[in-house]
């Protein structure tokens, strides 16, 4: 065997081994998807087998008994509002910290960034009490408040990007008579679009998938987000596995579509986020 053949063989072996591993890692997803097309008996008999026929009764059942679209709407509302606020607050702060690095601002910047080390759960108890007093619990709009804490992380990531922007553009906008906010809105925001998309995608995944905050601050069933909807249906479907898996699969559809469309940004968001520390 010559060198080239050996390399080809090596790559073929890698291929086979890696594809098998990848399929193994994806098995849980295969498992829940195939079972949505089965009856309870079929699921019990062969949990991993393919369904004998495509049976959509589980989907009909779930759509009839669970307000899936309503919780999709709730999740979308909370996510869009939270992410917009985080991006606005974070980018405004990043802009001021970058363009006006006075001694005061530099110190303030360090102090604010200390929040990145704080785990959210350690602020939860007083925050919950404050929210109860302000009558902001069990409200989808109120839920945006705890999420807006993510603005500090946004500010951190956006600052890293803004500090590399050409300063002359900001200066010439100023000479042309733009005030600080106008400069931000007309010059800095358009120039920062790549990082805003990246950070926005990153935070969208967090808010969309969050369980802890939503479960703590929401209580009425009609305000359930998708993740809460799944969680609160455990009891309802405790014996009807196929229906529960159907609900689970349905809850995964939006985020999967988001992943497929935004894959590139998700990976770059991961990298931007990972530079932290």
């Amino acid at each position, binding site marked *: 065997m010559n060198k080239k053949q050996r390399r080809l063989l090596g790559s073929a072996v890698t291929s086979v081994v890696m594809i098998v591993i990848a399929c193994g890692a994806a098995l849980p997803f295969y498992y829940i998807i195939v079972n949505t097309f089965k009856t309870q008996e079929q699921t019990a008999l062969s949990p991993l087998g393919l369904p004998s026929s495509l049976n959509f009764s589980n989907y009909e059942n779930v759509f009839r008994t669970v307000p899936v679209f309503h919780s999709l709407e709730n999740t979308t509302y909370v996510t869009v509002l939270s992410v917009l606020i985080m991006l606005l607050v974070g980018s405004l702060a990043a802009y001021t910290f970058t363009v006006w690095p006075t001694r005061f601002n530099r110190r303030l910047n360090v102090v604010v960034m200390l929040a990145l080390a704080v785990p959210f759960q350690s602020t939860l108890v007083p925050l919950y009490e404050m929210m109860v007093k302000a009558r902001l619990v069990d409200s989808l709009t109120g839920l945006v408040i705890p999420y807006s804490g993510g603005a*500090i992380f946004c500010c951190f990531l956006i600052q890293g990007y803004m500090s590399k922007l050409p300063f002359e553009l900001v200066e010439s906008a100023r000479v042309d008579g733009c005030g600080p906010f106008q400069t931000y809105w007309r010059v800095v925001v358009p120039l920062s679009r790549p990082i805003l998309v990246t950070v926005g995608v990153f935070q969208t995944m967090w808010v969309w998938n969050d369980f802890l905050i939503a479960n703590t601050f929401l209580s009425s069933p009609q305000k359930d987000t998708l993740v809460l909807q799944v969680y609160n249906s455990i009891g309802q479907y405790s014996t009807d596995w196929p229906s529960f898996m159907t609900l689970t699969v349905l809850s995964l559809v939006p985020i999967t579509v988001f992943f497929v469309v935004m894959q590139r940004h*998700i990976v770059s968001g991961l990298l931007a986020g990972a530079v932290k520390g």
Partner: protein
Amino acid sequence: MASPTPRTAGAPLQPSPGSTLAGGSSLTAPAGLLPAPGPEPRGARTAHFRKVLDVAAAQSLLTPVVFIFVALFLVPIGASIFLSFTDFNGYTTHFSFVGLANYRALLSSDQILSGLYFSILYAVATTVLVTLIAVPLAVVLNRRFFGRNFVRAALFFPAVPSLLVLGLVWAYIFAPISSGVVNSVLHDLFGLGPVLWLSEDRLAQLSVIIVGVWAQAGWHATLYLAYLQSIPGDYYDAAMIDGASNYQCFFRITFPLLAPAMTVSVVLLMTGGLRVYELPLAITSGNGSPGGPGYSTYTVTQNILQFGVSQGQYGQGSAMSVLFLLLVVAALLVVLSLLRRREARLR
């Protein structure tokens, strides 16, 4: 406290030599770009006025972030510390200071100690296992082979859905009855009876850790991969010419150059691991007790929520929160300084 009112913040800006007018500008512009002060005093005064206004406006753009910092971090942490020394319960406005009683109660409660134990066990175990899997995985994913994009996407995907939903899916996979995949495979292949994965202490803990590793390994491999791709190929070419083996290449080139990636990855795994909440909750939710069998998969975060929110025992919940904050910050500092030192040594 740290609320910058525009005017006070505008005052101590870098005083620049020459006119006080230029001192109003704190832009980091090269000096030549700053507009020269106008010749007539009147024009200069309006320019100065405009600059002060600009700085005031710019400082005011920081108000939202300062507000968030104060309202969502500073005040709650201060309140946590304060309440942890009281017996406040939320129902009455009367409360008294109880000194360290809350902390003492925490450290003598089995439920809390096992929560602490499992959170730390989970954090350490997932950190070690994910790192051991992700580094070699990244090296392989960096090679060229057929189906690479599929493999990368499939391994990354578990990081996309909510951990709660993933935990519920795995609860079915580990279930003791025949539709539980693990048990049906064990039965069909080896004729083993059903293993009660989620009802036995050690097995329940192991199950949660397995799922945690599965959910994160691909994500961290992607992180390492990005750093690998930035290693110049010349290094390997030069090493090959010098007769280095693949093994030597990995340990002498790849591994040291991955040190910064490892710092990032391990810090994220450690702090994220200590914060674990919904995964054990979801995986063991099936058998009725949210803490798993005998609190074996109970976490610190679950304790905080149970005391501080569900039961309204603000004093104890706050003490728990303070301990948790100290734990996470201490872990962060220790891990970060160890890994930074390691980076410096390998450089």
